[in-house]
């Protein structure tokens, strides 16, 4: 690293550090030097390690070097992109404080969906020296005619938490906006701040559309300690999700021993249940334990966040809603409930504690069933080895492209519109559309100007008009609606939850409320609520006295375990089989693993274990490819379909992260060779599309695509009546398109997205090629093994009501425990 002399750091900044008795870190000085040379960069390090200051002071330093007037207030120099609105406020405050302390007259403002409209209007005339904003708000700025003037002095764009945006459509939207900014300011510097990823090169490439990027490794935390909270007794037949709350006691002890604790859960319902369970055990904590999840009202969430920052809370139970976000320095302990699901995810959560450079972060993991102990040991192994997941950027999404083209046409309309050639060159300057084919480009142009490629289908279509060979939006109503609906975040139909007397609590999915009758009690936002009535997409509630309740089940929670994690799980199971493992978690579940081994087998990494069990229900086959639940969903449907083609049978199936179960009431059997045949990669895509009723799945994915591409309009406040006339469900649009414009490329995109994202076809393919090299071990255990039991529960759970499956599962657990104690011999056959 080059040494930085006094003049380069402007003196002011060195003084600033000196006044605090701080030392600037090597990586920070490295970033300042690279910035001063006009380079773009990517800094990767965990949150809270001074990445912000590294780039921010680089920009200030560069300006100090070149300005003639230290007291000047420059026009927009730095654009700061953050993925979360909540982060924007914190970042703006952070930047502003340092500007004031340096005695500069830079202005710092933010612009997000929450910014009042009079400020937004003022900003459209004059932007501050530094603007903190979101990808959506940036795109929106590009839709205004004055945007070239606003960005005329822009020096740098900083993308915070780039890893969060990278693999999403929001990331693609940002790529497009950045390409526009580069077209306006060719010397623009782009700096990304990211957590560590396996594919940092790719992340850098996407950030600048392939221009050179200086990669800087930030401060790494001293260590990350991952420890499991091991229960005193371990059920040998645990079932997903319910062992958790038995761990309340040790969790409460841990909370009591720390100053401030974040408890992370994997789903919103789990967060509600844990919040409730903690308060039931410690009613005296009412004031110091809070809940935080994405469905809660924004104001409530903001208050909770402020209270954590101030150190006024002893504990917050949260979902991924707090994975990112403001600096919570008082937090000194993190607890993860349930499977970590991914290595990077666990590290990110662990990083929310000990938020100081050089201080170890600690995380307690609380298993909700016995096998999660294996996952915890696996996650620790990967963290120690530095093996993290990659996040793959998306390419070629035509829905996002269509939206951006309309935005650009709209932004250019006052000046006579934009030539398609100019636009094509600009969008091909992104990673996402670098390889966009001419046919796709032409189709998207047709889509926004004529409705689609089929001329006859859209005789009255108008959206983007051709004006002298340029694209422009001439209809004011269309312009207005486009601006109202921009963005790529889509949500399910949500129903607002409000007190009868006024005051909003948050929102739940409409489907959940539809299952309730007035008078029913449910748990939401940490309170027992009684449903009073439902009107106009609002559920009115009051406090409930009774405590028998429902917990809203939100869609989602379908997160699959990552490949990096499942690799380590397989490795650990193999070592456990060979008696080689030292991890305390594995010792703790030795009993469970012993039963698994005695009744069936602990698979080695070159084996695919298949368990065949006969019960009153019929014949069950349990397969354990360890490929994650999404891939298993595809695999189970594929296997059922292929096997049923060999012998007529109807299969039902269930999946989890480790494997899947097929069950049939027919008395069929399959030979080794037949099972092998069904596990081939041959004809994979065609077979999958046939057996999965791909049209139905695609229809579901099409919801988001339709909204992003502007095919459906969900209305906006204050215009409900007139908006209603142009409302149609995306399902209907999907059907009509299939019939009257079957070549519509958005339909094809829906199919691709189903395969790649819902079913993780790459993982299915990888799993099957892996299986092709493995030996197939079929065992016939006397009854359900510890690996099989959670799968059985999963299937039963989807069949009968909550009350009775709970009873049934508990009864079943008892009878299996007894059988395990009897140590009967087993007939495991290879």
């Amino acid at each position: 690293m080059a040494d930085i002399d006094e003049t380069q750091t402007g003196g002011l900044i060195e003084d600033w550090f000196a006044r605090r008795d701080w030392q600037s870190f090597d990586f920070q000085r490295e970033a300042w030097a690279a910035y001063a040379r006009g380079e773009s960069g990517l800094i990767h390090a965990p949150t809270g390690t001074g990445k912000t200051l590294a780039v921010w002071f680089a920009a200030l330093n560069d300006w100090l070097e070149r300005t003639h007037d230290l007291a000047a207030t420059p026009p927009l120099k730095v654009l700061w992109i953050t993925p979360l609105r909540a982060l924007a406020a914190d970042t703006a405050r952070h930047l502003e404080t340092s500007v004031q302390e340096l005695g500069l007259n830079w202005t710092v403002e933010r612009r997000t969906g929450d910014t009042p409209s009079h400020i937004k209007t003022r900003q459209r005339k004059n932007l501050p020296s530094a603007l903190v904003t979101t990808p959506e708000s940036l795109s929106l700025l590009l839709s205004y005619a004055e945007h070239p003037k606003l960005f005329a002095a822009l020096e740098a764009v900083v993308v915070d938490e780039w890893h969060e945006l990278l693999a999403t459509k929001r990331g693609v939207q940002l790529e497009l906006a950045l390409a526009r900014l580069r077209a306006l300011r060719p010397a623009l510097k782009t700096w990304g701040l990211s957590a560590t990823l396996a594919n940092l090169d790719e992340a850098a490439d996407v950030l600048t559309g392939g221009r050179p990027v200086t990669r800087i490794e930030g401060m790494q935390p001293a260590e990350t300690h991952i420890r499991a909270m091991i229960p005193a007794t371990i059920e040998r037949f645990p079932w997903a999700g319910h062992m958790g709350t038995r761990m309340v006691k040790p969790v409460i002890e841990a909370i009591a021993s720390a100053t401030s604790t974040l408890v992370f859960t994997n789903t919103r319902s789990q967060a509600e249940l844990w919040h409730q369970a903690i308060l039931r055990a410690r009613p005296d904590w009412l004031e110091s334990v809070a809940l935080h999840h994405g469905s809660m009202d924004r104001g409530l969430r903001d208050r909770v966040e402020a209270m954590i920052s101030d150190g006024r809370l002893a504990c917050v139970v949260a979902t991924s809603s707090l994975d990112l976000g403001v600096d919570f320095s008082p937090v000194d302990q993190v607890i993860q409930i349930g499977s970590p699901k991914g290595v990077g995810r666990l590290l990110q959560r662990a990083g929310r504690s000990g938020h100081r450079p050089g201080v170890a972060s600690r995380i307690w993991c609380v298993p909700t069933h016995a096998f999660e102990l294996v996952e915890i040991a696996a996650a620790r192994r990967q963290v120690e080895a530095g093996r993290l997941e990659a996040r793959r950027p998306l390419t070629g999404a035509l829905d996002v492209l269509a939206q951006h083209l309309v935005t650009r046409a709209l932004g250019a309309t006052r000046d006579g519109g934009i030539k398609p050639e100019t636009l094509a060159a600009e969008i091909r300057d992104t990673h996402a559309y670098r390889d966009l084919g001419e046919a796709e480009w032409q189709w998207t142009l047709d889509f926004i100007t004529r409705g689609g490629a089929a001329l006859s289908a859209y005789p009255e279509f108008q959206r983007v008009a051709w004006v002298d060979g340029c694209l422009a939006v001439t209809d004011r109503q269309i312009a207005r609606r486009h601006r109202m609906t921009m963005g790529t975040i889509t949500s399910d139909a949500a129903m607002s939850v409000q007190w009868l007397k006024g005051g909003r609590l948050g929102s739940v999915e409409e489907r959940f409320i539809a299952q309730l009758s007035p008078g029913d009690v449910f748990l939401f936002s940490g309170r027992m609520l009684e449903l009073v009535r439902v009107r106009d997409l609002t559920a009115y509630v009051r406090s409930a006295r009774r405590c028998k309740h429902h917990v809203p089940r939100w869609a989602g929670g379908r997160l699959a375990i990552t490949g990096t994690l499942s690799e380590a799980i397989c490795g650990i199971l193999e070592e456990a089989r060979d008696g080689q493992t030292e991890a305390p978690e594995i010792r703790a579940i030795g009993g469970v693993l012993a039963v698994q081994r005695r009744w069936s087998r602990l698979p080695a990494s070159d084996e695919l274990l298949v368990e065949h069990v006969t019960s009153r229900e019929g014949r069950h086959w349990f397969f354990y490819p360890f490929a994650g639940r999404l891939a298993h969903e595809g695999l189970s449907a594929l296997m059922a379909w292929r096997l049923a083609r060999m012998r007529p049978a109807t299969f039902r199936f269930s999946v989890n992260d480790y494997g899947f179960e097929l069950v049939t009431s027919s008395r069929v059997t399959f030979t080794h060779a037949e099972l092998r045949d069904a596990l081939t990669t041959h004809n994979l895509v065609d077979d999958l599309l046939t057996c999965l009723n791909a049209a139905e799945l695609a229809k579901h994915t099409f919801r988001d695509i339709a909204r992003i591409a502007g095919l459906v309009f969900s209305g906006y406040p204050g215009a409900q009546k007139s908006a209603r006339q142009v409302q149609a469900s995306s399902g209907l649009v999907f059907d009509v398109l299939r019939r009257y414009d079957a070549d519509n490329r958005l339909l094809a995109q829906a199919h691709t997205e189903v395969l790649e994202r819902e079913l993780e076809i790459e993982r299915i393919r990888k799993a099957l090629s892996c299986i092709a090299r493995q030996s197939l071990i079929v065992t016939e255990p006397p009854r359900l093994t510890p690996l099989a039991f959670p799968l059985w529960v999963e299937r039963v759970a989807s069949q009968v009501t909550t009350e009775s499956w709970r009873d049934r599962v508990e009864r079943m657990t008892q009878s299996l425990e007894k059988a395990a104690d009897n140590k009967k011999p087993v007939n495991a056959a290879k």
Partner: protein
Amino acid sequence: MASLAVTLANEQLILRADCSLFWPTRSTLFVADLHFGKASVFQQHGMALPAGTIGTDLERLTAALVDTGARRLVVLGDLVHAPPAPDAPWLAELALWRNQHSDLVIDVVRGNHDRMLNTPRELGVDTFEACLIDPPFVLCHEPAPFERGVCLAGHLHPVVRLRDGSESLRLPVFWQSSAGIVLPAFSSLAGGALVAPGPVDRLYAVAPDCVVEVSAQSGQRRRQKAPHRIDR
């Protein structure tokens, strides 16, 4: 295509799997909620919904007329989605169809979408503002109890959701209550609203090739009153 005969006010009515209802005594075919020109409205607002459904819907209507031999067609409201421009392409298509069925009597009860409609003369239809009394029936758009008879109505676009385990089906229904029968929407561009049947109501689900009575419980959504969101 299997139809289903029901008796209402001592009259036999045929519920058809194309979402129309036939009254043999008067040789009258009823349809509700055609929403002609819906795709156009979307297109004018910049949303690329393909046209073409009007052709399909007119073919379905022709087939129903041929099949029943009906001499009169009653549209129970919402003939159009919005008042058309005089040169709207679909209007020409509709006029051509009318020309091919010149002997047919067409009565249109105005629905909420037809309020501003100036019916072009070449369509040769009679429109009625509130309702049309055709004993023992009251023909209207929005269903309501009438003293002068039981109603045949539309407006609600009733659908029912049938479930079996993880399988779920959404089908249009004829919804019979003490007030009368609500027809499902005829338009292939219509969404639907789940019905909220009372305990004595009867539901006749329209499958692609038949009409089947389903238990009112299966479609029941535990809500206080019928939802009135219909255009989704």
